Structure formats: structure tokens, C-alpha cells
């Protein structure tokens, strides 16, 4: 009971409440602006959270995450331009509805569906998370090491189109995580006699570069000089009758379950949840041909599915230290800023904070109903009148100020810039960025635990795989790495058999 009181008193303090409300509004704005995305926004936000209370910082992350996932529906419906990648499926029926003059109705359905999907997801996080965390009580250094390896392998293999490139990126991240003073022996590694490198590469500096600069360059390439006209954004008021709302209930239940399932899987994201939910709604419909032509159930399924992924992606992140998607990786980064090491021990050492964040994910999902209503949506749609080209230098300045205030060092600006350019090229050559970030986050934990395990076993390497739990996780990791190779072989065999 004490912990519940502690969580609620923490979450409902003035700072966290103001942070959740402000960030939810900001999140909808960010989602509504094509070219900006929640990953970039949270990466830009993290440097500012150093001096904040952890629950204020996490409340902002939760608000931006949930708000922007709904905000992405606004341009998807009005312009057929998904504000976030997860809103692609929303364009299928949302835009035809807008063309029929039903934009307001589509936006209302998107708003309610997003809020419900996010709420269901947060409830899943609050119920499954603690159970999974309890199961990790038996973990020792060997298990922690394999959990980190499993997380790395899952993100490396499942994110992106090429598993080998994903694993290569993960290894690069782990290697970058070794830069600086070795925490066990105090030896300087890869520091090239530079004092500023002794503390290692700053995670947030790399994060801001990797996730904010590539979209900035993409905005510059698009060179939108005009923005949209007021006429393009005119919305007529609309009502959604109760009978129609009731008809969405099966779609909302199905899409919530799909979104939660996808969220728990490391590597899958909101866009996959939205597509699967959309396809499931279409398959279950008595009139599947109406999908893609302005069926409101299509909007409800896609938006509910992509928001149901949000909190669920935090389940493996908060209990095991394995983020379900990039934003979950950023949340782990936010925790690191406040001196909290992600991993299985996080839940046990900081129950008030983890529990508070779960409640914040729930509250910010519900806040979408307040900040994403019809009138508010009208306002948010207006941000699209801003010429995209003006966002290029403004984001660049925000990146610079955010990075500079971390350590007050000009060299960090150049590290951020170099990381951003590398990120831009990596994206072009299909090297996923998430495994690099995860390597930086989990690398130190993996190294410390493997060395601790070897110290305990006096150098006996078999200790890493002879304990039952570590053996299971090690086998799962191996299976995950071998999975794409086996799949490629079987594909080739099937293709050869088909030729014969």
C-alpha cells in the first residue's frame, strides 16, 4: 500500500502533472508536423531533463510519446501525409473520409481510438510488468549478461531489413560503449589522450545526433517553402453517433491486443502494430471492400493499434532492460541520465519511479482525449501552415543548445554533428540506428556483469552457460542470431524446389 501511495503522490505533484499536460500538447504538435517525429523530439528533450526530477522528465517523455502518436493522424487524415511512420495505415481510410468532407469525424475517431489503445497498453504494462520483474529476482551476473546480449541480438536481428547489418550495428554500439575509463580497472580505453573522452561518449550527445540530424537533412532536402493554405486545413464540425461508437468496440479490443503483443516483441514498432490491426479489422469486416475507401473502422483500427504499442514496448524495457522499440531505448537513456541503470534490477531498486512512469503512460493516454479534441485538433492542424524549410535551422539550434548544456563543451557539438552525419548515411545504406543506441546503453552493463561472473567463477567461462536460467537465455540468444540464417537457407531451398 505504501508503494502505491508513494507512486501516486509522486505522479500527482505539480511538476509531473504540468510536465504531462505540456508534453502531451507538444507531442500532438510534433506528431502533426510531417518531418518531425517522437524519437527526434524525445532525443532533443533528454538533455534538458538533467536538472529535472526523474518523474518530471519521464512525464514529459510519456506525454510526447503518446501525444505524437496521435498527432501523426492529423496530417495522415487531412493530407495523406503520415505525421509519424506509425500513421501510414491511418491514411488508407482517413484521407478518403477527409475527401468526402468527413475530416472532423475521422479525427474524432482517431483521437478516441488512440486514447483507448494507449490506455489498454498502459494497463498491460502495469499488470504484466511487475509479474515479469518478479521472475527476474533469481538473476545473477551471468543472467544479466545474457539478458543484455539477448536484447542486443533481438534488436540487431529484428530491426531493419538485414540481420547481419543489424548485428554489426549492435556490435559497433557495444564497442562505442567501451570508450573511456574502464569502470572495474580504471584503465583508459580508446581515449587517444583526450581528457574529455575519459568519461566515455555521452549517450545523449550521440542520441541527439543520430536521431535529430537525419530528419533535419531530410526536411532540407524536401525544401517545403510554402506550408499549407488555410483553405486546405478547414474543418467542419461533425458528430459521431453512439451507435457508431459501439460498432468500434470489437475493433478497439482486437487492435489493442495486437498492439500490446507487437509492443512486447523487441524490434517491432507502432507501424507494424497499425498495419496488423488494420488488416485484422479488414479481415473481420462484413464489407472488406469498403476498406481503403473511407471506412471509419480502418481509422479506428490503425490508430488504436499504433497507440497500443506505446506502453507495451516498455514492458521488456523496464523489466529486462530490452527496449521494444527506439523510444523505449530513449526512455532507458532518460533513466541513465538520472543515474538509474536499466536492466532487471531497475524494477526492484526503484519501484516508485518505475511505477510512477507506468501511471504517467496511462494518464497521458487519457490526456489525448482532452488535448486532442476537435477544437484542439483544429489548432494543431494549423502548424502545417509553417513552411518546412524554417524548421531546418530551428531544430539545428535546439540540437546545439541541448547538447551544449549537458557538459558545457564545444567538442560535444562536433561529436553530435558527426554522429548525425553517420546516422544519415547509415539510414541510407540500411544500417539500423537502434542497435547502436542499445549497444551504448547495455554495453557497460553487459561488460560489468560478464567480468563479475568470471571473477566469481575464478575465470571459469562455463559458469556463463551452466546455470539453468543463463543457459536458457544463452540458447535463446543463439537461436535468435541463427534464425535469419536458417530462414534464408529454407527460403533458398524452397525457391530451388519450386524451380525444379
Amino acid at each position, binding site marked *: 500500500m505504501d508503494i502505491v501511495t508513494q507512486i501516486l503522490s509522486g505522479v500527482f505533484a505539480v511538476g509531473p502533472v504540468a510536465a504531462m499536460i505540456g508534453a502531451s500538447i507538444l507531442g500532438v504538435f510534433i506528431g502533426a508536423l510531417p518531418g518531425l517525429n517522437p524519437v527526434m523530439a524525445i532525443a532533443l528533450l533528454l538533455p534538458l531533463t538533467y536538472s529535472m526530477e526523474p518523474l518530471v522528465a519521464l512525464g514529459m517523455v510519456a506525454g510526447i510519446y503518446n501525444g505524437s502518436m496521435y498527432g501523426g493522424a492529423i496530417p495522415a487524415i487531412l493530407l495523406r501525409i503520415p505525421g509519424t511512420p506509425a500513421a501510414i495505415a491511418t491514411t488508407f481510410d482517413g484521407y478518403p473520409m477527409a475527401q468526402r468532407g468527413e475530416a472532423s469525424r475521422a479525427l474524432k475517431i482517431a483521437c478516441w481510438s488512440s486514447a483507448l489503445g494507449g490506455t489498454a497498453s498502459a494497463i498491460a504494462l502495469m499488470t504484466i510488468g511487475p509479474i515479469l520483474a518478479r521472475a527476474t529476482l533469481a538473476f545473477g551476473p551471468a543472467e544479466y549478461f545474457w539478458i543484455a546480449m539477448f536484447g542486443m541480438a533481438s534488436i540487431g536481428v529484428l530491426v531493419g531489413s538485414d540481420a547481419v547489418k543489424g548485428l554489426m550495428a549492435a556490435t559497433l554500439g557495444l564497442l562505442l560503449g567501451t570508450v573511456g575509463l574502464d569502470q572495474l*580497472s580504471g*584503465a583508459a*580505453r*580508446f581515449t587517444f589522450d583526450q581528457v574529455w573522452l575519459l568519461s566515455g561518449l555521452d549517450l545523449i550527445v550521440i542520441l541527439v545526433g543520430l536521431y535529430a540530424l537525419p530528419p533535419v537533412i531530410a526536411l532540407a532536402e524536401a525544401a517545403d*517553402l510554402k506550408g499549407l493554405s488555410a483553405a486546405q486545413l478547414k474543418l467542419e464540425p461533425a458528430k459521431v453517433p453512439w451507435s457508431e461508437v459501439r460498432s468500434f468496440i470489437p475493433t478497439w479490443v482486437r487492435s489493442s491486443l495486437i498492439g500490446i503483443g507487437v509492443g512486447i516483441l523487441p524490434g517491432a514498432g507502432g507501424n507494424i502494430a497499425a498495419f496488423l490491426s488494420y488488416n485484422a479489422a479488414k479481415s473481420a469486416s462484413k464489407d472488406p471492400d469498403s476498406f481503403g475507401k473511407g471506412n471509419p473502422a480502418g481509422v479506428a483500427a490503425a490508430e488504436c493499434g499504433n497507440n497500443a504499442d506505446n506502453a507495451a514496448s516498455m514492458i521488456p524495457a523496464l523489466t529486462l532492460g530490452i527496449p521494444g522499440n527506439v523510444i523505449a531505448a530513449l526512455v532507458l537513456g532518460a533513466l541513465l541520465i538520472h543515474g538509474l541503470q536499466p536492466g532487471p534490477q531497475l524494477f526492484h531498486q526503484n519501484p516508485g519511479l518505475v511505477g510512477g512512469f507506468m501511471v504517467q503512460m496511462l494518464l497521458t493516454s487519457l490526456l489525448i482525449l482532452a488535448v486532442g479534441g476537435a477544437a484542439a485538433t483544429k489548432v494543431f492542424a494549423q502548424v502545417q501552415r509553417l513552411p518546412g524549410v524554417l524548421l531546418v535551422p530551428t531544430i539545428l*539550434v535546439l540540437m*546545439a543548445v541541448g547538447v551544449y548544456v549537458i557538459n558545457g563543451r564545444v567538442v560535444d557539438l562536433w561529436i553530435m554533428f558527426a554522429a548525425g552525419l553517420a546516422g544519415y548515411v547509415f539510414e541510407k*545504406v540500411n544500417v539500423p540506428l537502434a542497435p547502436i543506441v542499445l549497444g551504448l546503453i547495455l554495453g557497460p552493463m553487459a561488460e560489468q556483469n560478464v567480468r563479475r561472473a*568470471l571473477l566469481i567463477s575464478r575465470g571459469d567461462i562455463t559458469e556463463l552457460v551452466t546455470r539453468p536460467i543463463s543457459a536458457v537465455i544463452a540458447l535463446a540468444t543463439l537461436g535468435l542470431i541463427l534464425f535469419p540464417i536458417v530462414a534464408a537457407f529454407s527460403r533458398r531451398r524452397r525457391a530451388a524446389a519450386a524451380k525444379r
Partner: protein
Amino acid sequence: MERRQDIALGAIFAALGLYAAVKAAAYSGASGTYPMVLGLVLAGFGLLVAVKAALRGQAMPRPLTDHTGRVIVTVTAGAIYLALVPVLGFYTASALVVVALPAALGFRKPVYLVLTAAVFVAIVWSVFSIVLEKPLPTEFWQTF
């Protein structure tokens, strides 16, 4: 899979991994073992990417930019901006880049630009210097 790009990418990662492994081998005891193994694994994955591309890659065009000219303008302006921050001060350099970069990208409304720069820099100043009280590189005119 674009053959030439992936061969180059794999080779770069392999070289990076090998360099890291050699460098780590010089570190004493367990401090060097872990990064050395990682370096070798990275080199292995790099080689795998390069070999895969050489054996099964196709010469399919995969442009590295959507609009090379604008990328060059943006990256150059970004680099100049970062170089100017410690010289001119944070807010002066920021105001300059907010005005100059959109203009370089083809935005031709000077009044709109100057207003945007003024409003934006004022907001950043209020948040970082007034509310958060963060020390930022001093403006050049304050040093006279």
C-alpha cells in the same frame, strides 16, 4: 543490396573492428579482452556484409541523398554554425543560421525570416538563459 556500397560499408566496418581489436590488445588484462573480442566480432560482421554483397549483391542504384545540393548546403551551414558558436556567441550564431539557412535553401521572404529568427531566439533565450539559467557561449559583443 547495392554491391559497391555494401562492399565499401563492410570493408569500413571490418577495418574499424580490426583497428579496435589491435588497439585493445595493448590494454592490460581483462580491460582489453572485452573490447578486443568486440573488435574482432565487428570485423567479422563487416567482412560478412562485404562478402555477401560481393557474392549476391546487384548493381542497383541506391542514392545516398534525395537532393545532393540541399544536403551539401545544410551540412556546410551546420558546420559553419557550430564553428561560429564559440566565436560569435550562441545567440548571435543561432540568429544568423536561422536567417541564412532557409534563404540558402530558397526561402525568399526576408521579413518573415528575420521575424522568425527574432521570435525563435527570444524563446530559446527565455527558456535556457532565463528559466533554466544554463551558461551558453558568450556573445562576441559582450567581450568588448
